[in-house]
């Protein structure tokens, strides 16, 4: 079991969702984050104070998958998120020791198999 964490551009988030859907990845959590990377900073001014903004909005995906789903998931995220411009984001694959489906208490493989499949 692995946790795939992907950080992508907000405007690509829906493309990633669709790519994941096609890859039959069903369980997904996503959230807004602010990222700092190779992107250029921008300057903002509020009345007399000028600030250098070093972060840009990104969307973070967190997806728990069984091992043989890791590659398809990573590929799906890349498909959906890639623009080729600096700022496309990163994917991290983290080992997971246990997964529990709260509703049923099922664990591991069973827990990430979507209902009805």
């Amino acid at each position, binding site marked *: 079991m692995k946790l795939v964490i992907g950080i992508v*551009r907000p*405007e690509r988030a*829906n*493309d990633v969702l669709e790519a994941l859907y096609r890859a039959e990845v069903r369980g997904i959590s996503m959230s807004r984050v*602010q990222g*700092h990377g190779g*992107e*250029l*900073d*921008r*300057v*903002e*001014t*509020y009345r*007399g*104070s*000028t*600030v*250098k*903004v*070093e*972060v*840009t*909005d990104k969307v973070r995906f967190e997806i728990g998958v069984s091992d043989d789903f890791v590659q398809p998931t990573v590929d799906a995220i890349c498909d959906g998120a890639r623009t080729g*411009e600096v700022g496309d984001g990163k994917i991290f694959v983290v080992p997971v020791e246990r997964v529990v489906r709260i509703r049923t208490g099922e664990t591991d493989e069973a827990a990430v198999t979507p209902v009805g499949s």
Partner: protein
Amino acid sequence: MGAPILAQATQIDTGDTAWMLTATALVLMMTPALGLFYAGLVRAKNALNTFMMSVSAIAIAGLMWALIGYSLAFDGTGDLIGGLNYVGLHDVTFAPRDGTTIPHLVFFAFQATFCIITVALISGAVVERMRFGPWMIFAALWSVLVYSVLAHWGFGGGWLQEGGTLDFAGGIAVEMASGFSAVAAAIVVGARKDYGRIGLLPHNSVLVLLGAGLLWFGWFGFNGGSGFGTGDPSVLAFTNTLLCPAASLFTWMMLDLIRDRKVTAVGAATAIIAGCVLITPAGGFISPGWALVLGVLGAVPVYYVIAYRPRTRVDETLDVLAAHGTAGFLGILFIGFVAQQSWNGLSDGWFYGHIGQLGDQALAALVTPLYAFGMTFLLLKAIGAVMPLRGPEPDESLGMDAIYHGEEAYPSGEGAILVSPEAGEEEPVPVAQP
């Protein structure tokens, strides 16, 4: 506007003046309210830019109006355009404006607020992608080349008004002008890069409802003030401004229920605007009963134009055509059917025996869209020939606020490093440039 010319033009009435001061303040307030309404309808990263398109119109159209626009619209009764006597506010003083019981200064100020909001309305067609610089230039030129001209035709003593067309509070110069100009603007500027590809949703519908509420509030001054006093035409228009939008709001909620059993809030806000627009040209000319009918029936076409437009390739983003162009068009025509001399003291419509009125109305409903669309199209093409109307694609992803205003609407503060003011004077880094 449509109010009958009164006798004793030299006497100022304190009650009429009191109401016109209020009405003027109300209409000025409508432009920030419109900015709020529009800002709520776009994505958070473009909220300030959208709001600022309206706010900037106050300065730009306001100044153009004072310097030249007012004179062209309201000086004399030339067929196509007014004179230059009032240029730079010359001769605009405490003396009553001819045919009214209010000081000329108040009449000018009241009219200024109309020019301002009309320009602001058009921005709805090009938000989320048009560059701010060209927008400001467009606003300045449009306010003279289109608004002043149509204002003169419609209620400044120009050929349409002289020809008998009735337009109480701006179905011609405000509603149809902005609505059909919006289509031209959307076509010339082009669609947002993600238009039709992903859902581009309003980021704050609470602000949309508040904005609509404030706009309705202001509209009582807009329509109720277009009789230039507290006389019968104003009273009638005022009351109809309560009834017609209430009716169109009701219709809209029912249409929503029929569509998929849900009454949308954004829809309700739109219905309020549509109702106010429907009654704008007709306010002082039709009976309260007919105002209710206009609200009930007029909302239907507007509803379907809004439902259909996104299936086209024209990204007329905030549907100015539907809410203002279509509704203004319908309101102008409706007068031709149901105007009643017993209510307006001026003229009857077809249903009351004077079919000619419908012809006069139809003429305006035909000419105005053509002029507004054509002039706006040419104007934007011309500006586009001198400078790009929009920025590179990545700018659109980052958002207009960061690119053209150097701000975010809702900054978190994290990741924003204070630059020593001296450093603040440095050139911004590349990506931040418009």
